[in-house]
């Protein structure tokens, strides 16, 4: 009798161990997110979204979706990432357009990154697209993709695009060593989106679809869109730095040791880099004395590192290999405007 009991117990524990360790799916198509994977057209319960100011990743286009378990809701938060239910999957496909002047010519899909929330928290995965561009396969250790496309001016561009390995995912996506999403906060999310049926505010849409709760009646203003010229330079620059830098440059982030913090909430001028001396920048300092010298962009390390493509100098360290030509003048103008 005892033997049988032991045996059953063993069987159950093995089964439990296997199901807990449930390996991530091998192919992107195995998740059934898409109606048409080759065109990135989602199924009804996979909701596409956009954020106010996105991270610059070498001019890639990004197709973002969130899939949540049926009947479960996320909790709204203006300044923090929504509290998503277990089973949520955040999906982001990176792609270069064939021709940026005519998007109808299609895209070259590079990778699709997933953040999956299970009982023990979030974990990151990356799926790399195949030659035929009809599916993507799980890869933990990253890959180099030499990509080419035609840019908005009709000039052929090329890039040594790096798919991050799983540790590198954690480098940006961790807060106090816990993996977290970065974008889906109220302040980044409260914008309109062009759904197939029309243009609707994302928060209103999620509310109506019963995907989001705890939404305040009067919501605070969303983050500025970094290239929206109707906004002030200050708001645009801080929004850009928040989404491009603050995931590491905040307390508890990967660059927490620098004491240089760029999140929108930061109000201390020294933490924001004003007249702050570099500590461990090495040649990243570019011979300059201050992280930000108010009024003097050409004497500010921040701009120097943003404008560099030398891996030992440039910032951000990951997910960038090219200069963001359109953002450099914005940051320059902002620094020059600080008294």
């Amino acid at each position, binding site marked *: 009798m005892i033997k049988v009991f032991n045996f059953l117990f063993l069987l159950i524990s093995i089964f439990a161990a296997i199901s807990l360790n449930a390996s991530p799916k091998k192919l992107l198509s195995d998740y059934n997110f898409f109606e048409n994977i080759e065109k990135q057209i989602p199924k009804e319960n996979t909701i596409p979204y956009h954020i106010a100011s996105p991270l610059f990743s070498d001019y890639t286009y990004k197709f973002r979706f969130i899939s949540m378990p049926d009947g479960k809701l996320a909790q709204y938060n203006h300044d923090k990432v929504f509290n998503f239910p277990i089973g949520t999957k955040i999906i982001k496909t990176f792609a270069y357009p064939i021709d940026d002047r005519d998007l109808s010519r299609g895209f070259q899909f590079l990778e699709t990154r997933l953040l999956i929330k299970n009982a023990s928290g979030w974990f990151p995965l990356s799926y790399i697209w195949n030659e035929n561009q009809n599916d993507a396969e799980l890869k*933990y250790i990253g890959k180099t993709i030499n990509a080419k496309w035609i840019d908005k001016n009709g000039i052929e561009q090329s890039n040594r695009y790096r798919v991050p390995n799983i540790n590198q995912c*954690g480098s940006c996506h961790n807060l106090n060593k816990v993996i977290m999403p970065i974008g889906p906060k109220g302040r980044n999310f409260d914008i309109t989106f062009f759904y197939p049926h029309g243009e609707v505010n994302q928060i209103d849409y999620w509310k109506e679809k019963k995907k989001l709760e705890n939404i305040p009646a009067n919501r605070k203003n969303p983050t500025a869109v970094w290239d929206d010229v109707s906004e002030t330079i200050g708001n645009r620059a801080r929004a850009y730095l928040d989404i491009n830098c603050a995931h590491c440059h905040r307390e508890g982030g990967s660059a927490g040791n620098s004491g240089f913090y760029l999140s929108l909430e930061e109000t201390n001028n020294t933490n924001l880099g004003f007249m702050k001396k570099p500590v*461990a920048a090495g040649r990243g300092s570019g011979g300059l004395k201050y992280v930000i010298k108010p009024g003097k962009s050409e004497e500010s390390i921040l701009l120097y590192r943003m404008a560099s493509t030398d891996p030992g100098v440039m910032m951000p360290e990951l997910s960038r290999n090219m200069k963001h030509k359109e953002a450099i003048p914005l940051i320059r103008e902002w620094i020059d405007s600080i008294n």
Partner: protein
Amino acid sequence: MKKKFYKILLNFIFLIILTNQAVSETIKPGPQSYEEIQSALIFAKPGDIIDLDEGIFYFEDGLSLNVDDVTIQGKGMNKTILSFKNQKSGAEGLMITSNKVVLKDFAIEDTIGDAIVVKGAEGISFIRIRTEWTNGPKETNGAYGLYPVQSKDVLIKECIAIGASDAGIYVGQSERIKVLDSIAKFNVAGIEIENSYYAEVIGNHAEHNTGGILVFDLPDLPQQGGHSVLIAKNKVINNDTKNFAPEGNIVGKTPNGTGIMIMANENIEVRDNDIRNNATAGILIVSYQEETEDKNYNPIPNKIYIHNNFLSNNGYDVDKKRAGPISDVIPGKAPEIIWDGVTPIIEWFGLTSSDRIVLGKNFSEEGEADFVNLNLMTKYLLPRFHKIDKNNQNYFGSIQSLKSVNFSEGIN
């Protein structure tokens, strides 16, 4: 029938146990070695040993490890070489973000940025590791060789660090640190302990750097108020490489030819060191003199206990650019031990007192090693009354020696 089923089940269990066992497969250099090593680092399980074979591995991208309790070991610091000469991405050679990792017997060469960065680890050991920029000291070299930061229980033993454009061995914002029997050459700073608590720097050899051993505390950082650092039994000689740090970095202020330099900090003990032939100073104790708005920061060193060191031929050619306050008041050869004499203003008025510098016996060929207090406070506030003080008897005394550093249980 039943028996057979049991047998199969047992085999199955054994299989699970086997596949979960520590794996130990030696990785050899070759075109696939980046993928092999990075995979091994990602799929490692606690307790695993990753073996690297003899030879030169060439990498274009940085490596990273985020699994606790993993050992990476080569066949020797001159036999297993990870070369990043062709590095195209990644800001460092190897990044470690997990706890209780042991690195042993290999070298990292010519990284585009730092060689080995360890962030936020509880327990990290570097044993017989070499980091080097092979084209000699150059401004374009990476900043740090061995670079644990915001970590606890840090062991650096029998390592070699050459050519870093900031510090060869740099421990920043960390706690419980031992740097033992290591060699630092041709770096701007040989060994640097910065904004850290409870460190032992014992038995090392710092030669041909700009500064041999530095203990700094800097403002505007999450951890500051560095204290309890023992610098003992080190050989700090011939530090004669011109400062080649990119401008803007604080280490760029290290005077050419500095033996041991202490900036800010509290409870520092410097004893039994052999300090010779450093052009600006043998031992230099200074306050942080840059502007800062950090109200929590204490720029003035306190309780610096210097005893039983042997000093010879230091201060023979003071770096006028970086150590102007010394050369301005001391023509010719400077004393072996130099303190800037900066104190809080109420202390200068005599309203409070503190044992800022405490000297025991320090030796030289001629007998006792000489000392100077530059009295910079008086120089700044009452220049007409300024005098240097070379009477070391005024600073004579003793402080209880620092307790030895003990790592947390289960570490190393």
